[in-house]
């Protein structure tokens, strides 16, 4: 079975001279839920644009479910649903018509298109708004409209470029459930996001792109395995009189009753608690300093920056 998406040595140099992609390779298997992560300007949207036929590549190959983008662009396009980073619907068109028309562009007959549009708009809680101009929707509704539009032709591969940017927590969670369910029903999903918690919760595969190169591509489990340290914040029962020295752990006082602890791999949290108990320090609560994927990501980007600095 061919992968849902296969990029080989994909390159893009914009006319301005910016080399946005420096030959990336990426395979995403059918049924996968893959996060494409990377700092601003890394090249995520460029890669997505090429796959969706919005940006012309300057080199390399793209295959979607075995269809070659160069030889069979129609076959590639028919498989993909795209939720772009920026709003790109007609602001002066009614919500339902935007979705119905999109179905028409994929050859869905008009009557059937209305049936499908109703289904996706209901799922995304937009059916009440079907007759209003898209312009009058709130930001979060506009994002959901783009998701509805991307799904109306039932694509096998759904690509979402920052779908939850500017979406409130409640709706974001509803969107997560929706995407998880869509994926469970067999749609392969690729998603970019700057909320790493989102990637950690939803995705099984993570590819990280930086300066136009794939710097990491693994399952989320394998990636977190590589995490060298984990940081916790501890709230203490009593004000701290001194910072105890616990061999193997790095402790830092944040304020009177808060302690930050870095636990290296090979050390355990229970070991930490034993040590603290011996010093008479009682811990009332504990939380991760940052999401674990976030920690990995920051380390990686820092390493990238140092490597670049060294090269210059």
């Amino acid at each position, binding site marked *: 079975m061919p992968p849902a998406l296969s990029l080989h040595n994909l390159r893009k140099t*914009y*006319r301005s001279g910016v080399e946005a992609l420096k030959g990336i390779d990426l395979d995403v298997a059918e049924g996968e839920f893959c996060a494409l992560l990377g700092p601003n300007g890394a090249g995520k949207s460029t890669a997505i*644009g090429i796959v*969706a*036929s*919005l*940006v*012309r590549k300057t080199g390399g190959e793209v295959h979607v479910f075995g269809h070659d983008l160069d030889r069979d*662009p*129609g*076959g590639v*396009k*028919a498989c*993909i649903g*795209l939720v*772009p980073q*920026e*709003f*790109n*619907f*007609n*602001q*002066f*068109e009614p919500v339902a*018509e*935007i979705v*119905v*028309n*999109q179905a*028409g*562009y*994929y*050859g*869905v*007959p*008009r009557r059937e298109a209305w049936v499908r549009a109703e289904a996706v708009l209901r799922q995304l809680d937009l059916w009440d708004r079907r007759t209003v101009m898209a312009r009058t929707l709130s930001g979060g509704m506009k994002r959901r409209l783009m998701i509805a*539009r991307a799904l109306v*032709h039932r694509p096998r591969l759904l690509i979402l470029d920052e779908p939850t940017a500017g979406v409130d927590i409640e709706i974001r969670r509803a969107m997560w459930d929706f995407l998880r369910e869509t994926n469970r029903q067999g749609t392969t999903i690729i998603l970019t996001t700057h909320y790493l918690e989102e990637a950690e919760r939803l995705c099984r595969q993570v590819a990280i792109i930086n300066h136009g190169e794939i710097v990491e591509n693994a399952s989320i489990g394998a990636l977190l395995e590589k995490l060298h340290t984990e940081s916790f914040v501890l709230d203490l029962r009593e004000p701290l009189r001194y910072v105890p020295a616990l061999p193997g752990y790095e402790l830092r006082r944040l304020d009177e009753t808060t302690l930050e602890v870095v636990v290296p791999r090979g050390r355990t949290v229970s070991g930490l608690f034993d040590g603290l108990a011996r010093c008479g320090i009682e811990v009332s609560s504990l939380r991760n300093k940052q999401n674990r994927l976030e920690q990995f990501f920051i380390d990686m980007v820092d390493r990238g920056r140092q490597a670049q600095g060294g090269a210059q």
Partner: protein
Amino acid sequence: MSRWRLSAHAFRTILTKEILRFSRIWLQTVLPPMVTTALYFVIFGRLIGSRLGEMDGHPYIDFIVPGLILMSVISNSYANVVSSFYNAKFQRHVEELLISPVPNAVILGGYVAGGVVRGLVVGTAVTVVASFFTDFAVHSYAVTVAVFLLTSMLFATAGFVNAVFANSFDDISVIPTFVLTPLTYLGGVFYSVSLLPEVWQRVSFANPVLYMINAFRYGLLGVTDIDLGLAFGLIVAFIVALGGFALWLLDRGIGLKS
């Protein structure tokens, strides 16, 4: 899905969308040409025309009817496509089409058909306005309809090409103002070229719009300054050339993809 079925549904979708678009804004799209034409009839037809006598054997007001109808068809077919497609570029919803498997010929065909329908609606409205001012019979329905359809297709396609190249809202008014309007006014809407001195007659024959207006006038009144076969040949040649160019632009993604 077969390519044909996909193309048929996609074409219908684009055309429906285009018709809905200009119908929603009929105050800006359908009404103004009716008002302008009524003014032309009042001023040139009634007030001035009554003193002018006949032209090519017809009362002046009847003589200008075909030109005024075709002028509104030309400018509306053009305007519909250029503003709709430029807007699609500007608001980026052209991407809805670019990511979908609609063949480029269907994208072009859909937009051009939208322009033709707008030309038909406005042309009919203007004809109705004209019928309040004068009675005229149709000399040849076949020629009238054929010239109308082909001219409208030609200018709709030209509007599409203009939109592909346009990078600002100013760019979509330059051609209508500096090319289309002079060509139509000098194309014999208000006069018969036989009135012009020899030299200017010859210059006028280099203006393609002259052939369209005269062919259309033949359809309605049965009089013309030019050869009909030549007129049809010219219009078709322009459609083929501009259509081919527009498809080439779409295939290369010029003005649409980075």
